[in-house]
């Protein structure tokens, strides 16, 4: 039974309240059910309760907390899932978070993301949206009355998208491969590349923030979300390698930005603790070592 159907029935009743008694009677005939009291909350006015009661399965479904209308399928360690959560928080959207089981992947995941079978998946009114940056843009488009996530000017939007793609296609894969580096030389080379990327991002921050606190200006925006979600794993890599990557000397603005980002109301409750992530990373590395033949 779809929430979408439930909501449209509800709005039908709202707009046709004077005819509702007729609807009620026809529903009783249609569903052949024992009637039940219709809540005052639904129609915003009280029924003539001595007379008519209905059980409308569609309407009673709509009565349930609308939190379940928006679901996010995710996993707590995933930076990509974090992006979706931050976007929803910025817009003050209530949603139900479903922690994906993996091993095996849940039927919901396989059904809602058949192409990649990955989290995050946002499900809004039974419709799935996949890929974290696409989810963030979708959230910005749908809940357009909340604070904007993408910049308003087309050129600024293009710049934000460019850097987000750079992060996903180049910078984060390099950061990830530091943990799996074979040999000290390889690790050093990768760490240098991560550092070079951070220098580029320091420059990008100076240009796009225009002296304000975030890439998005006064408020966190698309690029803050796209980059900030990786801060947890950046710290994990620093912890495991003993190398400071986000450097006060080389990237002072990014260091300050990172503190502000992590303290932000939309972020702090969904940013995993570094210690927990380190434990998780060690567990993953142990698993990989165990499954790799010598």
């Amino acid at each position: 039974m779809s929430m979408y159907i439930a909501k449209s029935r509800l709005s039908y009743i709202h707009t046709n309240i004077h005819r509702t008694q007729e609807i009620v009677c026809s529903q009783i005939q249609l569903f052949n059910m024992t009637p039940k009291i219709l809540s005052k909350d639904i129609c915003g006015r009280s029924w003539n309760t001595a007379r008519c009661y209905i059980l409308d399965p569609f309407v009673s479904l709509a009565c349930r907390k609308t939190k379940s209308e928006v679901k996010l399928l995710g996993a707590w360690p995933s930076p990509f899932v974090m992006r979706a959560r931050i976007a929803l928080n910025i817009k003050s959207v209530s949603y139900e978070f479903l922690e994906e089981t993996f091993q095996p992947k849940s039927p919901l995941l396989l059904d809602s993301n058949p192409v990649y079978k990955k989290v995050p998946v946002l499900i809004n009114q039974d419709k799935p949206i996949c890929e974290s940056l696409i989810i963030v843009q979708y959230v910005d488009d749908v809940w357009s009355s909340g604070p904007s996530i993408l910049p308003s000017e087309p050129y600024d939007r293009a710049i934000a998208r460019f850097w987000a793609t750079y992060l996903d296609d180049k910078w984060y894969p390099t950061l990830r491969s530091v943990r799996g580096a074979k040999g000290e030389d390889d690790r050093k080379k990768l760490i240098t590349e991560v550092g070079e990327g951070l220098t580029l991002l320091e420059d990008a921050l100076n240009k796009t923030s225009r002296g304000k606190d975030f890439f998005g200006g006064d408020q966190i925006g698309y690029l803050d979300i796209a980059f900030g979600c990786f801060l947890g794993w950046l710290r994990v890599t620093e912890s495991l390698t003993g190398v400071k990557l986000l450097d006060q000397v080389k990237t002072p603005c990014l260091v300050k930005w990172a503190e502000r980002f992590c303290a932000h109301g939309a972020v702090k409750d969904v940013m995993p603790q570094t210690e927990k992530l380190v434990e998780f990373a060690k567990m993953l590395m142990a698993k990989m070592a165990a499954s790799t033949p010598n």
Partner: protein
Amino acid sequence: MGEDNNNVVLLDFWPSSYGMRVKIALQEKGVSYECRQEDFEAKSSLLLEMNPIHKMIPVLIHNGKPICESLNIVEYIDEVWNHKPSLLPSDPYKRSQARFWGNYIDKNVYSRGKKVWNGKVEEKEERKKQFIECLKMLEEELGEKPYFGGDEFGYVDVALVPFTSWFYTYETLGNLSIEAFVPKLVGWTKRCMEKQSVAKSLPHPHKIYDFALKYREAHGYE
């Protein structure tokens, strides 16, 4: 946008499907632009200045400001020249789906296609299979619609149609018939080629084939 302040330059490389996307989008919107061809053996100082991170085409330079990454450029064009025809749908869910498939095409079509005409001989059958799988996925998404965008040509069509100029190359060098596997997609290709914006932006498939042969020779492939 004032007409007197609308200088548009495209840094391009003619066989690039990514460059073709931008040309189609500009044509759809009726935007005049100057197209400059890049030589990959000797990249221009303008390219290195405008895209220092990746040093790749296409780059759109609008009133002196660079925009990089082809689908990013297509969205930019759609937003700046926001008269009809629109390339992205207005409905947020449909927009998200269009972006999803644009992203899927970016991740899969070029890399799998290249392996078909340029890969090691012994892995050829596996690579052909992967390429066809990707095309079948796209054909399924197309369904019975005239275009990926529905009744109107749009973002996903722009994202995919340039690669069809490479189909003759994939078929000849890869020894396969794309139409045999994805006839609806080939039908869609013909429909798109009837549009002026597409016909003007895609090189003749035989020209692409000649380029591919020269490329293989220059890089020592069989």
